[in-house]
């Protein structure tokens, strides 16, 4: 299990040339499947994207991507929003589905192999991935501790 807070800033290295491609700036999460879909990599002043299945290894000191992989420029609206910093997850305000605020998102943990989100940390509490509903430009939305199911 990898913590997003620890991952940010880690080197991203090409598995073919050993060339440094940049460092991790964040991840894109598909909230429907609760999986990390892409890692975005800061190179100079711009963000580029590497898909989850292009990653060979997430090591303690570097992420190694496949030999053929070159990070791509943002394409979809969602990627462009992410590259603009609008979807950055850490420190984002948290709202529940009943309209109550819960401070900031402190961390998000995910499985190194599958990319499945395992837990999210909201202020002092650790919540199961199932409580994650949405990640948008304004807030991270979680299921209310008080709502049923």
């Amino acid at each position, binding site marked *: 299990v990898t913590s997003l807070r620890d991952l940010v800033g880690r080197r991203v290295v090409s598995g073919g040339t050993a060339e440094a491609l940049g460092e991790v700036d964040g991840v894109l999460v598909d*909230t429907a499947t609760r999986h990390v879909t892409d890692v975005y990599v800061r190179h100079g002043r711009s963000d580029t994207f590497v898909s989850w299945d292009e990653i060979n290894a997430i090591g303690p000191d570097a992420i190694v991507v496949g030999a053929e992989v070159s990070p791509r420029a943002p394409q979809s609206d969602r990627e462009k929003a992410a590259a603009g910093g609008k979807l950055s997850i850490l420190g984002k305000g948290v*709202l*529940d*589905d*009943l*309209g*109550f*605020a819960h401070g900031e998102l402190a961390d998000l943990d995910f499985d190194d192999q599958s990319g499945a989100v395992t837990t999210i940390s909201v202020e002092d509490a650790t919540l199961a991935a199932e409580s994650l*509903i*949405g*990640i*948008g*430009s*304004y*807030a*991270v*939305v979680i299921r209310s501790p008080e709502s049923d199911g």
Partner: protein
Amino acid sequence: LIKASQVIGLPVVTLGGDDVAEVRDVVYDPAQGRLIGFTLNARGWLGRRMKDSLSWSGVLALGPDAVMIRDESELAATDEATPALSEPPTDRNVLGDAVLTDEGVQLGMVSDIIIETGERAEVVGYEIDDKSGDAKRAGPRFLPLPQQLAVSGDALLVPATVEPFLRDDLAGFGAAVDDFRELLRGEAP
């Protein structure tokens, strides 16, 4: 319980986490005591009035920090939305109206509207200010409302039996509303 004045300016947020609007005004039906919906401003500090509005049926939850909706498609152009949302707000504005009991005693002027959140979003009470000069009273009081109410645009008429249920703060006000309505049901033929 939430005051209408606290709802104005709240962000309207989708379950996807995007803020698509903010509340410009709260529109409700005084006679039925039901919330109809919200008119909207665009987000940001130059937020202009939006053509779209939000009817209560599109709201998932009204909380102290946000109005939650499923997605942006819940916003509808005001003309197409419930006709009530496009009526001039002055028709429905009770702020500043006098509250009279059915025995002809003026309790004060409406200064805010108290909404019980939850599925029905019922208006359960008014905050009233007594500006008639009774120096012993400082600050607003909270008046429970019956489920149905006579409203004229000049004044609101409530049963005189409401007086013992007036409260000085919102703590315990929900119980006062329940007790008052229980009493009214008991009196009904």
